[in-house]
Each structure stands twice: as structure tokens, then as C-alpha cells.
């Protein structure tokens, strides 16, 4: 086999890899949307928002689901049902990101990410307290 054929075969393999990779990539993209948009999507999406503390928040031991109400940045509210227990740091999270799909008017989350940037950041108030 000569050098040219080698490059052609190699080129085809790499091209095939790139095409398959690109398609799979587009398929796996998870977009950030709001709840209004999430209702129109069939694919898994991520929604960032805030836990509504004064609405019902509970863990159901029978179905092993944790449900709460969330409001996104555009003031859409939706009930979120998470397949699992209440995540770490849920109460103190500044914001939560839920990953999943909308079904029957509820957001079925398979993942919850709690965002607590402040907890690792030092604040001068903490020193001030000890100065007193």
C-alpha cells in the first residue's frame, strides 16, 4: 500500500470521527432556558432559579422524590420534582440549577446543582466581629 492510500484512509476515518462526534455533540448539548421555554422543549434543559421558601417543600419517602417550587429569572414559577433527597446546601444556596424536562406541568429534575459562591468567600465582617 502506498503513502497516498494511507492518507486517504486516515482522512476518511478522521472525517467519520468528526462527523459522528459533531452529531453526538449537538445531541448532548444542554441549554440554559427559563421555565416558559422549557415547556416547549423535548430535550433535557437546565433552568437556573431560586427556591420559593414559603411554598410547599417536601421529601416524599414513598417515591423518594424531593419537591419544591422554584422561580426563574423571568419570574416564571414551576414545581420541581427531583428524583432523590434534598441536596447538600439546599437551604443556603444562592441559586439552584435544575437539569431535566417538563412533564405534566412539573419540572422533573434528574440533577440539582446548588450554587453557594459566598460560602467559600471570606468577608471582612467576620473579622470585624472578632475585633469587637
Amino acid at each position: 500500500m502506498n503513502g497516498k492510500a494511507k492518507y486517504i484512509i486516515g482522512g476518511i476515518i478522521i472525517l467519520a470521527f468528526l462527523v459522528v462526534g459533531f452529531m453526538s455533540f449537538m445531541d448532548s448539548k444542554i441549554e440554559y432556558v427559563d421555565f416558559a421555554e422549557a415547556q416547549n422543549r423535548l430535550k433535557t434543559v437546565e433552568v437556573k432559579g431560586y427556591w420559593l421558601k414559603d411554598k410547599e417543600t417536601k421529601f416524599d419517602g414513598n417515591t423518594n422524590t424531593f419537591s419544591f417550587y422554584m422561580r426563574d429569572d423571568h419570574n416564571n414559577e414551576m414545581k420541581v420534582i427531583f428524583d432523590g433527597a434534598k441536596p447538600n446546601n439546599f437551604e443556603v444556596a444562592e441559586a439552584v440549577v435544575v437539569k431535566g424536562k417538563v412533564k405534566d406541568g412539573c419540572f422533573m429534575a434528574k440533577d440539582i446543582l446548588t450554587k453557594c459562591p459566598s460560602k467559600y468567600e471570606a468577608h471582612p465582617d467576620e473579622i470585624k466581629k472578632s475585633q469587637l
Partner: protein
Amino acid sequence: MLGKFLIYIAFAVSVLSIISFLLVHFKQEKYLKFGRIFYYAGAFSVIGASAFMLYNILSHQFQYTYVWEQSNRELGLPLLISTFYAGQEGSFMLWTFMTAVIGIFLMRYLGKGDRLEPQVMSVYSLVLAFLAFILILKSPFNYVWDSFPGEVEYGFIPPDGRGLNPLLQNFWMSIHPPTLFVGFSSMAVPFCFAIGTLMKNRYKDWIGFAMPWLLFSGGILGLGIMMGGYWAYGVLGWGGYWAWDPVENSSFIPWLIIVAAIHTMVAQKRTGGYIKTNLILCIIAYLLVLYSTFLTRSGVLGDSSVHSFVDPGQEVYLSLIVFISLFILIAIFAFVFRIKTLKKYAPENKKLLTRENALFVGSLTLCAAAVIILAGTSWPIIAKGSIDAEFYNRMNLPVAILIAFINGISLLLKWKTSSDEKFIQGLFFPLILAVIVTIGLVLVGVQDFLFALFALAALFAFFVNIEIAVRLFKKQRDNIGAYIAHVGLALVFLGIIASAKYSKEENLTLELNKPVNAFGYTMTYVGASPFEDANNKTDTKYHFNILLEKDGKEMVLQPVMYYSAFSQGVMKNPDIANFATKDLYISPMGLVEPETFAQEDLHEFKKGEVKQVGDLSVEFVDFDFGNMQKGGEEIQSGNFEMGAILKVKDSKFTENILTKIKYTDGNPEYYEAKMTGNDNYSFYFTKMAIKGEEEGGPAGTFAIVDNRVKKEHDEHQVTEEALVITASIKPFINILWAGTIILVAGFFISIIRRRKEIL
């Protein structure tokens, strides 16, 4: 001041060292000794600064912002040491420290002959200078009054620090980051060799000099990555060891590239080809280390990772970009400058089925895996969104299958020549064995086609390498390293197949003392018990004891949950029962606390508020503190009794009744109260909120139970205390851990051989 001063010195003399070594490169031989002295001076300044920083931590110098932020007086020695690299500044310090130390060994190594010392060391000094520059911008030696100007008075020493993130309070966390940083730092060496050899315009012998260093980087980085996986599995309780998290990915990508480089460098050593490939791979590997630092430190991935990111500030962000861009420019410039010479080395091999071609294709496949992971990990920078972890699994599965097959095939091929007959002969036995075992695996349940193929490929590679390793063990023991590493890799692949695809998982709610059956075990949650953690005296940790029974044998698993004051949240650690063929893995998910009253019976009242409850009209009049003081010592102690007065009106009468609650060590006990002549309702005072009263919100909560409604449970208890867990069976995960250890060991054994070759 000492710390900052040493960093400035380190930066300045590293620059001098660059200049001196460059002068040597341009034939000014007399500057060699200056170059060396300046490098030593720079390295020892960094070591001195690190020692000073460690001293500050160990002696609790809380006037330093970094020490105050990351540690406190309660941490034990090992954890205190790990605060050194718990924060951004410290981890840059550790990186610089490791780079400085590795450089000392490198310089001594290069000095033992004509080993490109001036060229390699001029680039290496540049690396050190850059890291020192970042430490000038992001100093671990800032005082609190400088960090918070105007808010903290000059000279104030905080009495205690904030303490260490509890996720890091763990054995694996005290060794995993340093190991990774040794790996990251050592990746600069191949880069410097590649640039150095381009400067020298000599492309043959650098391969031999650089090889032991690449093996070291590959081995140690591999070890660090594996420890991270074990930490995620054993401590974080992800339930797995690998989640394609951006931080994991960003250390895995350079590892793939360096491993690819090792293989094509072996090919160059034997055949003289792949010169450009090797230069490019060695350069890219370090650029990817820098890029991954950029990714994980710049805060761009904040939305898509479980690791926490703090914005390091614009200066660090920019200097990392400058750092990367400069190195890319240097590399491009060197290539363009040497393009004529490089073009002279055209490939000469004509046969397709040779070991060098197989190695090249194998390296290309490793690079393909790196590209896949890089694309997914970088996506959040380009667009708003993330990539589903499934993408990595789906894409890397065929790549891994290819890698395993190519691995086996390449070792059956000969260098330069190809003899089809011998190749097919060699193929025969390993392939037959692999097919037989795969058929066995399919029969016991591996029925997914791709996974069966993956198993076949891994087994094939396993048998090919085992056969060679056994043969070499008798004759040429020195050469055994590569085959050991491959056997390890094959085992890792088999472990992945078993544990990723065939683990079973179930969410269970274990009510107190009620046995539940899962996976053939009887699990009973028998209650929680507090325990003391010598490393963390701030928080009270709890074991949640689960009694496991099977075939008359018993054992207790103790997953942990506790409230962490530092992160203001509940932290959870899994517990694992290790068996020879599987792990039983228990992740605590949460505790359902017993509820005494049904939700619909509870009513919140503001003071003076009137509510209609059933056929009653109820008004909350006031608390009755008796002779206690509001907010006084008794209330603080958690041992007291207090009352609340309700004004209740039924169809006939109006009556003021006193409801009471008693606290013993903070645990409440409720007293029943009733109206005279009306048994239909019972009243309980369940919660008070003095603060709510002051803010005009609800002040008291009362349970008003209608006794005519039949209750499911005895008394008023509606739910039992229950532990919610995720239990899973991880089959043959031990194969995976054994494989990773064997894989890493293979790298280190190879170093011995490659060092002997250059002496």
C-alpha cells in the same frame, strides 16, 4: 513582608536565569555558571517562601488573609498542612514550589553531559518566572488589613481563622492535590525539552533524555487522577469514581496527550520517524495543563461543576491568558524558524502493518479521546449551556475499544518490517482466549453488544500483554514496565465494564428499626449516634447505623451526615462494605424527622390573630412566660417550660385555655389542653417564634387536633424517623482499583529502563 520579598526575588532571578541560559545558547559559555546560580537562587527563594507560608499556617498567623481564610486553631496537623493548598493562592504556591523543586533535579540531570541544558533551562526558568509572577498578583502573604482596606484596622490579628472546607477534611484530600500538582509541574519538562531541542535544531537524542520525565509525569498524574476518583467514590458519595466533571476532565486531557507522546516517542527512538508529532504532543500537553488551570480557575465553569470556583480576579485571568498565548507563540515561532530542517525528515517506512504505524494510530486514538473531552469541557465557555455527561460515555466507548485492540495488535507487530504470517500466528492464542472469556461474560450477563466488544478488546490486550510480561520476566526484566502498564489498563477497562454498566442501584427509605430487603441483604436502620472527629471539633458528626444481615452474618455500615458550620449545610459521606467480588455502597440521602402532628392540624398565629378552625374560632392571645425572663438564661439552656394562651369560642362558650410546652435539652414535649365540656378538640402548643412576633410575622404554632377524625397512627405521631439512602452494588470494582495501581506501577518501572538506556 518576608514572603512577598522572597517571591519578588524568585521572579527577578528567574528572569536573570533565562537571560544567562540564553546567552549560553548563543555561545557565551561563561554564563552557564550564572544561569545555574540564578536558577538555584530562584528555586530556593520559592522553597523559602513556601516554608515561611507553612510556618505561618502551623503557628496560626491569622494576620495573613490566606491563613485566616483557610485554617483555624482546631485543625489537626495533617489537615493544617493541607490548608496550604486549599485556596487559590496556596495552590498556585504549591504549583510553583513543585516546579522549583523539579527544576533542581532537572538541571542536575541535564548537567550530566551534553543534554541541552542551556536551551531546556532557559525555557524552564521562563515557566518558573511566570508562576512567580502569578504569585505576585495573587499573594498568599497579604495581611488582613491590606485585603480589606478601611474595614480592618492596621495590625489587627484575628484570634481564630475561618477553618477548612469540610469536603477537604479527609485523608485523600491531603494527598490528592499535591500529587496532581507534581504531575502538572512535571509536564513543563517535556515542553521545555521540545522547545529546547528546536532551539538546538537537533531532533534525535532529546527523545532519550526526555523519556524518563514523560514517564514520570504520566505515572504521577495518573496516580493523582486515580486518587481523585477514589475520593469521589469513598468520600463524596457520588456513587461513582468518575463523573466527567470539568475538573477531572481537565487533568485527564493532558494525561492522554502525554501518554500518546510516550508511544510515538518510543516509535521515533526505534525508527527515527514522528519527529514533528513528538514535538507537537510534548508542547500541547503543557499548553493543556495551562488551559485546564485557566478553565478551572477562571470561574467560567461555575455553572457546570461540583467543584467550587472562586473568581480569581481579572489580573490572574489575564496573566494566564498571556502565559498560554506566549507559550503558543514561542512554539509556533520555533516551528516556523526550523521548518526547513524539519521538512528534511520525511517518513521512510513503507509497510502498513508495522509496530510504529500501530503506535501512531494508537496515539491518534488517544488524541481523539482528548479532543472529545476537550470539546465537551470547553463548551460552557463558548455557549450558555453544558454537555450531558452521557456524551463522553457514548463517544469514548468506541475509542476505548479501538485503543484496547490497537494495543494488543501493535505488540504482535514488528518494527519496520511486517510479516503477516507471524502476526496472524501471534494473534491466534490471545484472541481465542479472549473470545472464550467474552462468551463466558455474555452468558453471565454482558449482553450489550458494544460492551461485549469492549470486553473482548480489553481481554485481548490483557492476554497479549500478560504473555509478553511473563516471557520478559524470565529474560529481560528491565523491559517489563510497558506490559505491566498495559495489563493494568486492560484491568481498568474490565473494571469499568463491570462497575459502570452492571451496577445496580436502589433508593430506599429505612424506617427506624424496620428491616428492608434489598440485593439479598436485610437492612435495618437502628438509629444515629454522634461521634467525635479529631480533625473537626467544630461540628458534631453522626453515624447513621445500618445493620446488614445475610445468611446469618451481620455487619454494621455507618454512613455519616452532619451539619457543617463552615459550609452551612448538611454534609454526607457514604459507607462501603468491600467484598472480593463487589462493593455494597450506601450513600445517605437524608433523614426524615418524625412528625408529631399532621401538617393539616398545624396552625401558625400572629399575636392577636383570629382563625376559624373547624367549627371553632381561635385567637392567640399571648405567651405565658410564667416567672421566666424572655430570652433569659433558662431559655438559652434549652431546659424550660412555657405556655401560650388561646381564646377559643365554640357554638356555646368562649374560654381562655393555657397550652404548654416543655423542653428538656432542647427536645420538646407537648401537653394536651382541652376546653371544659368539649372533648372534640385537643390543643397543643408546638412552636414559638419570638423573633417572628417582633417582625410582625407568625409568633406561635399550635396543633389543633379534631379527635373525631380517626388517625392512622397511635397517638398523634404521623411519621416515623426514617433514613433515606441510595444503596448500590458495584460488581468487581476491586478489579478497577487494582488495574489503576498496576497501570501506574508500570510507568514507574519503565522509568528505570529508560534511565539505564541513556547512561
